[in-house]
């Protein structure tokens, strides 16, 4: 028999947990205050970026510090293609943002992937910072101050869902639900890629790239494909950010965004695709709690992440109920069932 990809749920229980989580997210706006609806939207966007980066980190074994730049670039694309103050429909802005981010990733990836390991990390960082300085040091996107943009219209087939038509307390709902749909879509697309033979090749590259070459895979091409797909997903996340806030600034493009995605993955669990989602909620939840109890929020953040990484090698998604674990580990030790 062919095993399930190890980053995907291994049984119906995992899928059921994901479905339950989605249902919970769908219900939350009915009980949460507008502030928390906004915060959850932010967390979902963080999860989208982390999911894209996870295709590299977890599935291919590549650690990139450049994907924050593709995220920010996509948000700027929305600003740059919307003529002064006029909003474009989402079905125009989203493909444009994803295409630009994907092309940028293809170009940068084609150069960065000529290096390996630590050098790869540094080259992705350097290219990301180049994009950062384009927006930071030129007037292209409002310079260091950033710029307001007309949020893309949630419209398709002549139907429009305008936040302004909602009562004040529910203005965040349309964007929230668009983000939820997009998050689920990204997870499903990645799950599809991972369970395909492309996912198997990427996993082989992660385990032993030299051997994959020797048996006949041009590993460079496969890594480049993963790099570009991750760039497109980062672009979708950046687009969502512009829709959420209506504001772009160079901070969106900086390396900190990439580092945040890596922290989220570490926190949620490097061995599971859903780790990117769980990690994002934990990360933003943690920041929120830290902010409530102290002014030194980063200190609390850092300490909590350290504890999780040290105590839980597989992150939050690596936690298993004891009873469940015992049953799974009992038959034929060392043999994969």
């Amino acid at each position, binding site marked *: *028999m*062919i*095993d399930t990809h190890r980053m995907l749920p291994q049984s119906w229980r995992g899928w059921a947990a994901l479905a339950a989580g989605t249902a919970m997210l769908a219900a939350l706006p009915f009980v949460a205050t507008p502030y928390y609806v906004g915060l959850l939207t932010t967390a979902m966007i963080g999860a989208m970026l982390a999911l894209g980066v996870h295709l590299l980190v977890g599935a291919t074994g590549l650690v990139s510090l450049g994907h924050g730049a593709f995220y920010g670039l996509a948000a700027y694309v929305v600003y740059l293609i919307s003529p002064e103050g006029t909003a474009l429909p989402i079905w125009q802005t989203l493909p444009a943002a994803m295409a630009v981010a994907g092309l940028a990733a293809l170009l940068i990836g084609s150069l960065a992937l000529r290096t390996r390991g630590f050098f790869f990390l540094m080259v992705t960082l350097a290219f990301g910072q180049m994009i950062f300085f384009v927006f930071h040091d030129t007037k292209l996107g409002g310079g260091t101050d950033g710029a307001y943009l007309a949020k893309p219209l949630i419209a398709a087939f002549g139907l429009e869902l305008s936040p302004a038509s909602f009562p004040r307390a529910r203005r965040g709902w349309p964007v929230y639900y668009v983000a939820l749909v997009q998050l689920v879509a990204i997870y499903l697309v990645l799950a*599809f*890629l991972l*369970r*395909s*033979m*492309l996912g*198997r*090749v990427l*996993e*082989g590259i992660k*385990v*032993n790239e*030299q*051997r*994959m*070459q*020797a*048996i*006949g*895979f*041009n*590993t460079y091409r496969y890594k480049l494909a993963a790099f570009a797909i991750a760039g497109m997903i980062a672009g979708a996340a950046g687009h969502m950010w512009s829709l959420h806030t209506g504001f772009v600034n160079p901070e969106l493009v900086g390396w900190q965004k990439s580092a945040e995605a890596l922290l989220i993955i570490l926190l949620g669990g490097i061995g599971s695709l859903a780790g990117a989602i769980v990690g994002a909620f934990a990360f933003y939840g943690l920041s929120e709690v830290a902010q409530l109890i102290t002014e030194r929020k980063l200190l609390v953040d850092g300490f909590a992440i350290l504890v999780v990484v040290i105590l839980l090698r597989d992150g939050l998604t690596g936690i298993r109920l004891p009873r469940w674990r015992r049953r799974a580990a009992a038959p034929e030790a*060392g*043999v*994969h*069932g």
Partner: protein
Amino acid sequence: MADVPPGILVTEGLSKSFGGLRAVRDVTLTLNAQELHAVIGPNGAGKTTFVNLLTGELAPTSGRLYLEGRDITGTRPWEMPRLGVSRSFQRTNILKTLSVLENVRLAVQAVKLPVRKILSAPHTKASLVEAARRALGRVGLSAHEKTVSGVLSHGAQRQLEIAMALASEPKALLLDEPLAGMGPEESERMVVLLQSLAREHAVLLIEHDMDFVFKVADRMTVLVEGAVLTTGKPSEVRANRAVQTAYLGSPA
């Protein structure tokens, strides 16, 4: 092209230098169909460098490489299995966290699956799995297909190495010290396996163990300091004084 000698895999004046070190010097060798051709030589004779030249892992400094009369010099390593040249490694080089079957299935996928089908799910392409199972059957690993390859015994990992090379149904099979680190019982099984492989493939065997080589080889080439000392049948090589000198030192 017209004067290319017949044979599956042919090298002509193949050389490789690393700076001032001439690791492989002017090696001309013909690997024929259904032949087990052993390349032997003392440590540091350039045997593994020679295999790496044949698989494209290293680019030769000079010389040509032909596959069935076609010049394939400069082919990249990942293109070789599709052309019909595959190899095993001296130091076990498998996908340790994946199952035994998946190791071999990937090797089949690399040469048999068109890239446009890359998004189909592994279980939908039963022919790849069947080919992988056949290769596992050849080396005697069928019972372990679900085992995570990293927990196999050393000998079984060596068998898996060969199954992965066999998976692409190569014309030329290059085996770099398949016996490395094997016990006597496992070696005995490997002899039987190699003899059966040589009936269907052209096998180039790099080996250190002389007893083993004389038992299985149809022809052999002796490399010393990167150059060919002699080529011939095992009986001829055994009688060759130069070989005796190279291995045992000059007679008193």
